[in-house]
């Protein structure tokens, strides 16, 4: 029995060590790589805590995409002048370009503040009731009326539909904001910085059909097992990025309107569902009739996957593409 305990202790020790090294690492590149391993350890933790959906999403988004974004941004920040380590001597560094540099006193102050806060948090967590099943019973009772078997998908796309809709809104807001920063609403002329070679093209040609298969499988799986819109969307994003890298036609070859539409497809579909249900005479807003909810959820999931894939791949391409303006 103490084997799992041993595994837990090892996992937690690894997590804490990686995050400590990650924040304390002198070299920025090393910090980025450690950040990717931190994401992987975290998804390992999710599997241990029986949250397979989250593990899928964390591995793909937390470790994969965040890593790609960080590497892309890091690559853009003139890697060579970064070689010498960041020394904590007071005059060499600055907490913030404008505010003064974190001298000894500042570090001490920060340490005491954070120390006391963490102690308070630990006390609070110890005080938490060790036993409590939250809303599980309620979810399972109304699971059959939600039109979907898998409880997480039911919660996401029916019970708390409003949250998921707003979350896609967050994605759209982020995408729009980044595009405003570039002041142009399309990606057409973004080329990968290096010319793709034949080997990569052939590899990607082979991989693409399998990845499409995986995307559809994950999407269909969402109804009754861990899977669904987010995980499928992220795999789709990975595929699109690979296509772009290898010089094939990816989302950068889409026309402006088509690209914009696919960007907000998920959000717009949910908006449509909300508008219809809100204007429906006797039904309360966002309430799906029993027999229709399964079909509606599936349609929404397809649109959500499409828009998540396009948004996340645009994020990555924007940060990796050669900044030309």
């Amino acid at each position, binding site marked *: 029995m103490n084997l799992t305990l041993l595994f837990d202790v090892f996992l937690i020790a690894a997590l804490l060590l990686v995050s400590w090294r990650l924040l304390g690492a002198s070299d920025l590149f090393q910090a980025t790589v450690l950040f990717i391993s931190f994401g992987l350890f*975290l998804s390992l933790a999710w599997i241990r805590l029986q*949250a397979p959906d989250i593990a899928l999403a964390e591995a793909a988004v937390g470790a994969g995409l*965040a890593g790609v974004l960080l590497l892309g941004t890091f690559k853009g920040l003139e890697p060579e002048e970064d070689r010498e380590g960041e020394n904590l001597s007071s005059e060499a*560094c600055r907490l913030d*370009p404008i505010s003064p540099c974190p001298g000894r006193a500042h570090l001490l102050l920060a340490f005491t503040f954070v120390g006391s806060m963490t102690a308070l948090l630990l006390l609070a967590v110890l005080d938490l009731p060790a036993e409590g099943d939250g809303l599980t019973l309620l979810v399972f009772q109304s699971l059959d009326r939600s039109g979907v078997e898998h409880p997480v998908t039911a919660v996401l796309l029916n019970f708390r539909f409003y949250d998921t809709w707003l979350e896609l809104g*967050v994605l759209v807001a982020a995408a729009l904001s*980044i595009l405003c920063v570039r002041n142009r609403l399309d990606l057409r002329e973004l080329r990968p910085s290096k010319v793709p070679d034949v080997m990569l093209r052939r590899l990607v040609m082979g991989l693409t059909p399998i990845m499409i298969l995986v995307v559809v499988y994950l999407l269909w799986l969402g109804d009754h097992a861990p899977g669904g819109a987010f995980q499928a969307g992220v795999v789709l994003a990975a595929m699109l990025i690979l296509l772009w890298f290898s010089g094939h036609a990816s989302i950068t070859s889409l026309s402006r309107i088509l690209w914009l539409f696919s960007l907000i497809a998920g959000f717009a579909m949910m908006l449509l569902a909300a508008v219809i249900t809100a204007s429906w005479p006797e039904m309360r807003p966002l309430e799906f009739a029993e027999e229709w909810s399964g079909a509606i959820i599936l349609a929404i999931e397809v649109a959500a996957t499409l828009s998540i894939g396009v948004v996340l791949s645009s994020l990555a391409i924007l940060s990796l593409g050669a900044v030309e303006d």
Partner: protein
Amino acid sequence: MDLSMVMSTFFLYSLAAMLLVGMGIYGLLTRRHLLRKVMALNVIAGGVFLLLITTAYRNQEHFPDPVPQAMVLTGIVVAISATGFALALVRRIHQRMKDAKTDPFGEKWDRS
């Protein structure tokens, strides 16, 4: 899996989550390179999500509680979109610095 075993994993992981949050905040406050700050924020987010998933894992009799898992899924997507935006801003600022060659704040923008 008897009850005490479940109890200890719950406390073990939630304590770890709080330590992660503490480390993340310390990193956020003292690290000065903006890329590091973004990473620290993601570490804090990881810590918070770990706490949520541990509370979901707590009731062992039947399936773990799906609501916190849905919350974490939404949280991950929110975190990645905010991080993506922050990184795009950092890259844009640095691009603007390089063009301008001068540093609006009087010294090299990002020491490391």
